Structure formats: C-alpha cells, structure tokens
C-alpha cells in the first residue's frame, strides 16, 4: 500500500513536471499584426499578411500556420519575427475574420500526419491563435456620378413639364 502511494506520488510529480515543462516550452508570448489589401481598384488580389513576433528566450526556429485547412509556412523575418502571408482572389475571399493557428515544428508534424490521414486536426493545440480581419474589397462606386446626375436632371425636367402642361390646360 505504501509502495503504491509512493508510486502514485512519483507519477503525480512527473506529471506535474511534464505539465510545467510543456507550459515552459509554450511560454512564448506571441503578438500578431495583420494587414489585408482591400482596394480592388488598384490591386488585383486580396493579400493577407500577418506579422508575428515572439517574446521568449528560445523562440521556435520555424513557425507554421493553418488557415481554414490550408497550411502555410511562415517566413523568418529576423530574430523572433515571422511572417505568414497568403493570397486569395477578390471574388473568392470571404469577408470577416480568418482564424490563423500557429504551430511549432512538432505541432506541424502532427498536423501534416492528421491531414494526410484525413482526420480532424482539432486535437493538435496551436502555440498561438489570432484573427486576421478582412473587411471586404472596394470595387468602385455603385452608380456612376455622371449617370446619377443625368437621371436627376431628367426627373427635374419631367416634373417641370408635367407641371407646365397642368397649368396650361
């Protein structure tokens, strides 16, 4: 009985140590700064750029991102700095928030394996998650201002003409 409790004690200790270690390795503080191109009058594609900066002693050598089932390799942009970028068609790009899940090397390995087997990837916890907001594209004015001015003047002309014929009759 004593032996058992000792064993369980050891087990609990190792478990807590493991938990501590895992939190220590995941203690990096990430911040994400994002940008999307929205002026469809000038640019031909919607670009999503997320600049990630990590605040910790040993930041991961490589960072990977998963956005709506797509895997993106983050570019290293200096010490503790990464950039995740992807492009989409203006017609296809959905307006709203895009969830970007960031993974380190081990998480990415698990993710690739799960995706290859066609399984759900919800079991893999990302090192950080952030939203990139895409407010939709500006594709120019709805109605041409010249057209609108012509319509307004025609309406005015019609009102004046009917009024005149009413007086005359």
């Amino acid at each position, binding site marked *: 009985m004593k032996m058992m409790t000792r064993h369980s004690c050891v087990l609990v200790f190792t478990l807590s140590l493991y938990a501590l270690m895992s939190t220590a390795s995941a203690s990096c503080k990430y911040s994400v700064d994002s*940008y999307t191109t929205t*002026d469809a009058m000038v640019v*031909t594609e919607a670009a999503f750029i997320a600049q990630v900066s990590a605040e910790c002693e040993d930041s991961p050598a490589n960072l990977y991102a998963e956005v709506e089932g797509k895997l993106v*390799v983050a*570019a*290293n942009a200096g010490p503790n*700095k990464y950039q995740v970028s992807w492009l989409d068609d203006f017609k296809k790009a959905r307006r709203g928030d895009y969830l970007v899940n960031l993974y380190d090397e081990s998480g990415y390995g698990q993710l690739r394996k799960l995706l290859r087997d066609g399984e759900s990837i919800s079991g893999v916890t990302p090192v950080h998650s952030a939203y990139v907001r895409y407010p939709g594209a500006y594709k120019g004015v709805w109605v041409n201002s010249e057209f609108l001015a012509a319509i307004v003047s025609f309406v005015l002309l019609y009102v004046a003409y009917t009024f005149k014929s009413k007086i005359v009759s």
Partner: protein
Amino acid sequence: MYSFKSIVLIALICTSLCISSQSSDEPQARLLVSKQVLNKLLVQDSDILVKYTIYNVGSVPAINVILQDSGFPDEAFATVKGNLNIQFTRIPVGANVTHAVVIKPLTYGRFNFSAAVVQYKSSENSVEPQLAISSEPGEGYIISYAEYDKKFSPHLLDWFAFAIMSLPAVVAPFVMWWISKSKYELILKQKREKVSKD
C-alpha cells in the same frame, strides 16, 4: 493598364539563373523564383502588392533559403506590411512557397521593378551558397494620386457644385412665376369677395 502578368510569364521562363559550379550528377535543389507585381494601376500613396513565389524543381530540399529584395529604395517607397528580407529554413522538393509584401510609392513617375536575389544551399553538404535571381516585373509608370483621383473618384463634390451653380437658372423663373401667380390669385380672391358682397 500595365499588364505585368505577361511580362512575368515571359520572365518566369528565363528565370532562375543558377550559376552552378558543382558537378551535375550530384542531386541538387533548384529553385525557380518569380517576383510579380499584382496591380492594375500603380498609384502614388496606394498599395503595391509584390508576390514572390519560390518553387523547388530539384531533387533534394533547398536549405537556408534567403530572399532579399533591395529593389525598393527607402526614399521612394515605404513598406506598408511585410518584410523584403526573409529566410526559409527548408523548402522541400516540389514545394511552392509564396511570400507577399505590400509597399507604397511616395512619389510618381517611371520606375523599374528589378529582380530579387535568392541565396540557398543546394544540398546538405554543399559549402558555397547557390545564387538565383527572380524574374523581373519590368518597368511601370506610377501615376500621381491627383491624376488617379481625377479619373476614378466619384466626383461627388464636383457634381454638387454643378447643381448649386445651375440652381439659379431653374429656381429664378419658378420664383418669378410663383410671385405673379400669388398676386393674380389675390386679385381674383378680392374680386370674388366683392361679387359676393354685392
């Protein structure tokens, strides 16, 4: 206006000027690098989207790939978002890596979009870094913001000013007619009252 895509396609074919010094029988990573400007118009103070695509057509992964683009001088361009100097630790065989940067031109005029330089280790035990040059998007004309605004803005203020200017020509005859009408009606009313009194 500027069909960059056609230029890029042609440039992509003659891209990747790999200056190889090693023997060809050793398996090597070979990178094709394209640089594209994804813009319909180049406008001063508006976004220019630059897309870099790196494709490994070799037989082994490319290691420590460094992409550097020094084609945008600080006095003429500001970076909106993204990095012009980046590094990928590994690009596997057959993999396609894209990178996007948004910049904005501070002035207008003709500008030559030059190539970016990529440096990488073509195999695990290669000592000398391999150099590759991306495709060149070519020359483009950056129009001034005023010119762009003249062509593409909704001109609401201009039309409002026009409406105000044309208002006297419409309102003045109407007011004159209204005054005479009310005067006539007043006389008519007085006459009617007189008749009813009699």
